[in-house]
């Protein structure tokens, strides 16, 4: 029988960029010892991207780097990146980094015949040798074109330069500004053919999102999507790729909802660990209270929890929950509960997702709450929100984090199709709704679905008092389920009858 043998060929060697998320997308980093082109419009983050590549290389991988600036002077550059916590001066002093500023003023120069860029080669060679550099950035080499007029010479020299860099074995980043119909103004992509990354900064509905796409990566697999990225006080983070396969591990452990009666409705034990739960209902119905109970329960088990609030401030939530006898403040002080409040319009949806990811990675919670997801509609369409939530749920499932979403349904349209279409994604769905009867408004709670467990199918009365949230057992009267004052009247009647009957 023929034996199938899998030949393992050597993979293209890669240099980790150290930029969080990028190395996952590129499966290891940038091509080692080869030039990579980073292109994008002005202000898309090219310089920052490349400086982070150099700094992370020097700090995390012990690879000294040379930063050749054609635009900014060394001290300007140092000031600009100081806000990211990169101390260039210290790196320069310890010979981990060298910044070279190259400047050509066209007005100063008369061209009198044949020339080449040997001076640039000598400078680069000298800079590389002086610190034993393994990485180099040329930012933005196209500026040479504005300083020198003989394009034929420049093109030939750039071709020579990139080959020379390859021979030197340094991993290089070349940045280029986006041009008309080309990736770069001078068509650098023709010369740098190993890896091309495009940075983009787009504004949709007045909300800007930075995105990154790997256009080309010769000899390697890579993610082909557009990935949003964030620039914050820690530098660049690219949204990690979530595997969108349905093969996550599941847990059969259960976690309490914090409301005993609700646990009873859910087969007596509560939600599955690592599952996703949707609580939907009209305004003022107690969704946030249910969420807060869940957070409280999580903390009382000594499990960390993050509360993402898109509507109310943390102080407001804590004050309001105190009024129903729930003290969240001491858990915040103990460091078990973390509030993260942000207006949905602060940034785009992808950014919200990224912010959530980052916080989860830092805080490592066992459960999170998003309250309410319906507010995100202001920054994206329903289908966008759905795609974001799919990715979020997928990520949380992998990390075995239980998530509780709340969603607002409008009074006018209490159909089961709202809730941003997430109802089909979640594992459990609780509905809280108004029951208007006899001139009073009462709350009813029921479980629309709860995958993998036998759950109560009844509508139960849900009450909020200053002692907290409670769910009452169903009282069946002669005309069906009784709620509110009708229930109380019926209960009283029954009690009286009991007494009378005994006598």
């Amino acid at each position: 029988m023929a034996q199938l043998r899998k030949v393992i060929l050597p993979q293209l060697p890669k240099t980790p960029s150290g930029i969080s998320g990028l190395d996952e997308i590129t499966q290891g980093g940038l091509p080692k010892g080869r030039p990579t082109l980073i292109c994008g419009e002005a202000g898309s983050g090219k310089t920052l991207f490349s400086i982070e590549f150099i700094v992370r290389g020097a700090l995390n991988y012990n690879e000294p780097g040379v930063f050749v600036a054609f635009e900014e002077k060394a001290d300007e550059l140092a000031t600009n990146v100081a806000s990211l916590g990169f101390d260039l001066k210290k790196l320069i002093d310890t010979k981990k980094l060298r910044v070279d500023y190259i400047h050509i003023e066209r007005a100063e120069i008369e061209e009198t015949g044949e020339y080449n860029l040997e001076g640039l080669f000598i400078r680069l060679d000298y800079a590389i040798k002086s610190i034993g550099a393994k990485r180099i950035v040329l930012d933005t080499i196209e500026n040479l074109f504005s300083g020198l007029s003989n394009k034929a010479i420049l093109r030939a020299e750039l071709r020579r330069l990139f080959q020379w860099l390859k021979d030197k074995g340094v991993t290089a980043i070349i940045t280029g500004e986006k041009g008309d119909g080309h990736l770069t103004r001078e068509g650098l992509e023709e010369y740098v053919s190993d890896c091309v990354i495009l940075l983009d900064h787009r504004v949709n509905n007045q909300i800007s999102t930075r995105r990154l796409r790997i256009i080309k990566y010769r000899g390697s697999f890579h993610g082909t999507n557009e990935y949003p990225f964030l620039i914050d006080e820690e530098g660049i983070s690219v949204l990690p790729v979530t595997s969108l396969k349905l093969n996550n591990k599941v847990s059969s452990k259960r976690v309490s909802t914090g409301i005993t009666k609700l646990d009873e409705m859910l087969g007596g034990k509560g939600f599955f660990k690592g599952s996703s739960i949707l609580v939907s209902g009209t305004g003022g119905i107690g969704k946030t209270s249910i969420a807060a109970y869940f957070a409280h329960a999580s903390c009382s088990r000594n499990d960390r929890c993050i509360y993402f609030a898109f509507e109310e401030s943390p102080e407001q939530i804590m004050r309001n929950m105190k009024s129903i006898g729930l003290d969240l403040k001491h858990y915040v002080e103990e460091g078990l509960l973390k509030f993260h409040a942000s207006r949905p319009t602060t940034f785009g949806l992808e950014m919200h997702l990224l912010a959530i990811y980052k916080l989860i990675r830092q805080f490592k919670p066992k459960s999170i709450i998003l309250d309410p997801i319906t507010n995100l509609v202001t920054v994206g369409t329903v289908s966008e929100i759905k795609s974001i939530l799919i990715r979020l749920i997928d990520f949380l499932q992998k990390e075995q984090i239980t998530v509780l979403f709340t969603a607002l349904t409008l009074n006018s349209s209490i159909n089961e199709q709202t809730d941003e279409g997430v109802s089909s994604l979640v594992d459990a769905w609780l509905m809280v709704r108004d029951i208007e009867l006899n001139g009073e408004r009462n709350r009813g709670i029921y479980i629309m679905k709860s995958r993998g467990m036998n759950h109560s199918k009844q509508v139960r009365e849900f009450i909020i008092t200053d002692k907290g949230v409670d769910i009452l057992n169903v009282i069946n009267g002669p005309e069906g389920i009784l709620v509110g004052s009708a229930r109380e009247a019926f209960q009283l009647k029954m009690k009286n009858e009991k007494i009378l009957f005994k006598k």
Partner: protein
Amino acid sequence: MKDDVPYYEMQLFITGATPNSVRAVANMKKICETYFPGNYKLEIIDIYQQPFLAKDEQLIALPMLIKSSPLPLKRLIGDMSDTNKVLKGLDYDL
């Protein structure tokens, strides 16, 4: 020699014995001897021997001629084969 003829001080940066460099040196010597004989100082510097100068002098394109006197300072690049452009660059009035 007239008194108002300026004294030329120039530095020519070259890269070893590459064709451009050899031509630039020959062309420059010829120009100097033709237009301001005996009234100039031409220093020829091989960058291969002193690579650190490349950074100090902002050298990129080579060969490069820097005229430091008379002022203003001028930079000329190329093999100096275009005599008219060289003279223009040196502010020499024909």
